[in-house]
């Protein structure tokens, strides 16, 4: 009889080790610190990379199999949605504007994240951190693709989704997410993980994904919901990477603590400012509301964040500097943002509208301390103007914060009637900020932020006109020329929802005889 050859099969743990750390070697032709220069220059001291606990035990072969199955399910749903004309089942065509904001502002961030993780996945000396980052880089690229595919169906029927990459690089409000990510991935690898893996994915991601995905579910958008489920399991891995990276840095050397704290202060605030767009979407753009921004903030930030910072206190970490101001802002930022987009709705690439009476009532109920007192008057006034003089748009470009690039619409903490102004002079030039926290970020690294591509300033410099326009004298309507450069069709891609082709088409397709703008 032949001797049976025992095929030696590695156990899960050994296989994992072989497929991750086992692939690492120390270089000898060149010194290690020359091959891996990036993970030292930020000042983070790492003494023993073996102490890095791999946050998830996933190897590349398992990854392909697992993600392949998920993608097959996702694309089956996307196909079914398309074949059944799923776009007709959504609550109201206004909902699609939330998707426009997503494909314009969030989806490109997935691609930025892909590039960022691919970069740090090369640069860490420790193999565990490298592999985790590489896997996340692939996740992010998949998310970019699956979001694009899920939403592309809507692009066949609705305006405002046809030129999103160009818009992301040029349009004023999209510079908010864009500059956020460029700031992150032009830092070193440890700052990048603190910014994206920790502050964004661990601390704030629920505030991004839950509103969009449960918003999709409430408004009949099964295609986007399925994407959300597909991404969810990846997100939980990403969150684990974020907290592991933080703990690893804090445990490696006490000198790392102040650096990590400064990054947390910075990236919590930058993430919070970015989420202003989500707050607005949640309170104003979903025809069927899920919960208010304020409720979401209390549930996902205040309770989770409070526990987290209690946990990190043993390392000498305190809650981020802007924490209390962010918590106070929950009563205000969504209203301030929608008021801004309403008046600049002719210069955006989605539609805006005034809340209907039932929606105004909902806002009053959800924001009993602030909505009626500070914000309702503006909307009432615009409603009157719209009846008598027609839809009002603000024709003058706004002042932007040099760091977050949001128009200077935020008010003084404790006084919602006053714009919050802060400024610094650097190399003889003034720079303005929306908050003491954005100013603090600038003051730490002014040379980084003075190169910011500020959309309003760039328009005045002539960077956003078509070739046939003389930037020194752009004619009677600079905004019109800028929109032409953006590739945004006035009135089709933007303007008031009530007069949009999106509204009339949707009503026609559904045989809807209700008055313009009426929600289901």
């Amino acid at each position, binding site marked *: 009889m032949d001797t049976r050859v025992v095929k030696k099969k590695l156990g899960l743990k050994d296989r994992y080790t072989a497929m991750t750390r086992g692939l690492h070697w120390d270089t000898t032709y060149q010194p290690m610190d020359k091959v891996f*220069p*990036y993970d030292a*220059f*930020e*000042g983070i001291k790492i003494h023993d990379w073996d102490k890095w606990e791999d946050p998830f035990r996933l190897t590349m072969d398992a990854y392909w199999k697992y993600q392949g199955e998920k993608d097959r399910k996702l694309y089956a749903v996307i196909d079914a949605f398309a074949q059944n004309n799923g776009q007709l089942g959504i609550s109201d065509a206004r909902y699609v504007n939330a998707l426009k904001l997503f494909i314009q502002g969030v989806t490109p961030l997935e691609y930025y994240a892909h590039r960022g993780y691919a970069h740090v996945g090369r640069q860490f000396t420790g193999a565990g951190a490298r592999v985790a980052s590489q896997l996340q880089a692939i996740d992010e690229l998949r998310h970019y693709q699956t979001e694009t595919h899920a939403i592309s169906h809507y692009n066949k029927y609705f305006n405002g989704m046809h030129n999103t990459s160009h818009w992301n690089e040029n349009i004023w409000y999209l510079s908010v997410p864009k500059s956020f990510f460029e700031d992150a991935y032009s830092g*070193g690898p440890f700052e990048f993980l603190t910014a994206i893996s920790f502050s964004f994915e661990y601390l704030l991601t629920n505030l991004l994904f839950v509103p969009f995905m449960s918003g999709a579910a409430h408004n009949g958008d099964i295609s986007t919901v399925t994407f959300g489920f597909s991404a969810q399991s990846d997100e939980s891995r990403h969150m684990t990477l974020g907290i592991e990276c933080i703990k690893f840095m804090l445990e490696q050397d006490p000198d790392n603590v102040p650096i990590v704290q*400064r990054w947390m202060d910075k990236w919590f605030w930058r993430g919070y400012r970015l989420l202003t767009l989500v707050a607005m979407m949640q309170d104003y753009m979903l025809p069927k509301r899920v919960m208010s921004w304020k409720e979401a903030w209390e549930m996902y930030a205040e309770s989770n964040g409070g526990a987290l910072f209690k946990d990190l206190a043993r390392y000498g970490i305190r809650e981020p500097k802007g924490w209390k101001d962010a918590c106070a802002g929950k009563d205000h930022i969504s209203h*301030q943002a929608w*008021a*801004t987009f309403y*008046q*600049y709705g002719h210069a955006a690439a989605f539609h805006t509208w005034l809340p209907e009476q039932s929606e105004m009532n909902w806002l009053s109920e959800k924001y009993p301390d602030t909505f009626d*007192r*500070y914000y*309702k*008057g*503006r909307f009432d*006034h615009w409603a009157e103007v719209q009846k008598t003089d027609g839809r*009002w748009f*603000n024709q*003058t*470009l*706004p*002042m*932007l914060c040099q760091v977050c690039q949001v*128009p*200077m*619409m935020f*008010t003084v903490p404790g006084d919602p*009637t*006053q*714009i919050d*102004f802060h*400024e*610094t*002079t*650097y*190399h*003889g*030039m*003034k*720079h*303005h900020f929306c908050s003491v926290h954005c100013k603090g970020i600038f*003051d*730490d*690294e*002014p*040379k*980084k932020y*003075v*190169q*910011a*591509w*500020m959309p*309003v*300033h760039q328009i*005045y*410099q002539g960077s956003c006109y078509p070739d046939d326009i003389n*930037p*020194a004298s752009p004619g009677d309507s600079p905004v019109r020329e800028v929109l032409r450069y953006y590739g945004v069709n006035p009135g089709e891609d933007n303007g008031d929802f009530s007069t949009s082709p999106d509204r009339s088409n949707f009503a026609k397709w559904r045989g809807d005889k209700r008055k313009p703008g009426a929600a289901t």
Partner: protein
Amino acid sequence: MNAALVTDVMLRSLGPYPLHLADSEDRFYGNRLIYTSWENHLMYAAPFCLPLPPTLPFGALVRVVLPEIYGEHPEFEQIDWERTQWFNSQVRFRPDFGKSLEHHGLTHKSLIRFRTPALEGIKRSTAPGRQAF
């Protein structure tokens, strides 16, 4: 201002990091950026950013530019320019309508805030249900 306090000590990089002031005054075709804020009037969601010639007389700013950009506000007509308080950021100044922006020390990227005290009381004085915005 506090220029002396601002340094780049926190900025770390692998190589040289040249200074690039993306919004230096020479890039605006002879204009300079001036920001304007009508205090307490938040119908205009954010202050404005305007490219203006440094030689523009202050009076032209008030009589030509401001009506164009704030004129749609229901209170604009009622502004008493004699009683209006002007600030260069935090610092109060009294404008000479015949003299230029430059003359008033309004350098590139200066912020002009103006307060219209006669209209400050509207929050309390108008009918219930109305509010300042």
